[in-house]
């Protein structure tokens, strides 16, 4: 029952949700802090949204689903992927539902 719920939740994620999870994991791998402003810039760059409100809404939805946590650090809201988020990302990647795109912010901060 709970697995079914989780699967439905994951399948209802949209392309911006997927990328937020993906980039957050990438940022963590690179050891770079990734915040809501960076997410907004990256979503804008891949033309997924044009407003910060939508970017915030995508982030908040993922946080409500316990896929990410938002930590306020030094006046920045940094995003970290949770265990559930990692499983959701793995599922979406395995199903190849969305094509991955690179984050502009993470490329610049190479």
């Amino acid at each position, binding site marked *: 029952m709970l697995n079914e719920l989780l699967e439905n939740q994951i399948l209802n994620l949209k392309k911006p949700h997927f990328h937020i999870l993906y980039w957050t*994991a990438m940022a963590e*791998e690179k050891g770079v802090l990734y915040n809501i402003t960076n997410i907004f810039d990256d979503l804008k*760059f891949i033309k997924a949204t044009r407003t910060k409100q939508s970017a915030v809404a995508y982030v908040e939805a993922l946080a409500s689903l316990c896929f990410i946590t938002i930590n306020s650090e030094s006046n920045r809201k940094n995003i970290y*992927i949770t265990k559930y988020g990692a*499983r959701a*990302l793995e599922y979406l*990647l395995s199903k190849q539902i969305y094509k991955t*795109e*690179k984050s502009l912010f993470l490329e610049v901060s190479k």
Partner: protein
Amino acid sequence: MNIGIGGAGSKLASMASDRECTIINVSELELSKVEAKSKLLAVTHSAKGQLRGSGKNPMIGREAFSSVGQKIMDIIKDNVVFSSTGGGTGNGMTSILLEKLSNQEDSIPLDERTVFVFVLPYLNREATEYVENTIEFLGGPVSASIDSGNTGNIILFSNKLKFEGRIPESEYNKMIVDSLNSFLGIPVKGEMYRLLDGHIDFEDFDLFKSKPYFNHFTQFQWNPDEPFENQLRHNFNSLLLPPERAIEAMFLLELPDPSLTSKFYDILDYFAADNIPPVYGVVHNPEITQPQITVSLLYSRKPREIVDDFKRISDKYTRNRIKKSLEQHVVLQNRKLDKINEARRLVEESGNNTGDVLGFLKRIGKL
């Protein structure tokens, strides 16, 4: 006691007073290079300034003034301040000093006024920054202080002769100091030698040097048989900027032979023709063989006009420099390092490293 501000001003003050002076600088190293009875280190927050002085940046001097400002205001009364106009410390600190004197509500008493000795750069040979700093200095603080009437004489030495005559700095500084001493020695000689006519005592001299005008002084051997006007014109002090029409004058005539005394009326006639009754003294100096005269002319050429001269000549050299650089113009390829665009290019290249991400998530225990 003389006061020297900045590198050039300190050297001159030390030389002019046989080290019995106060020198001020922002750099301890610069202070250590000059011998002086008293040294004031002004505090600057610039590390470069602390080590090597203000360079050519007057802002460093201006900022540092507050740390020693009150002390300077106390010691300059009835003294001589030496500074260059082109550098950083001298220009910056003296600018504030002049501004403070200009802004005093009450007129400064005559016996407390300060004589300023400035050394101006030579436009043709010295760095543009020196010239630009001088233009700012003359047009701003000096102009305002002349208008306020709160300074004593302002003496404008120029580095022109130094460069044209290829004279080493120490030798040139000695020439400046000797020349200045010839003027400052007038009342001493007035007291020392037997008076033949007129009289210049210390009181007369102090009153003369407390007037807020530019001072041009010169000393030369006087020929009683030649018109004084020609002799004066040919013997202007080449270390100083040339004078304008004098407002007030002073001269001390030293005669080896008292029988020549009556000849000095020719000199009085010259000044009378210009409506300038001079302060004068004629003394018998048995140590010389030829009559010698020391003349000081006070003139009030507005600093603005001096600035215009500086600007005119400065512009000419700037044009020449630009012309020269255009002639040597080399077209360099425009190379841009644009990280954002480079990142965009990389992002546009498709690539999938999803395996790495999942591997990482497994390693950190999130999968």
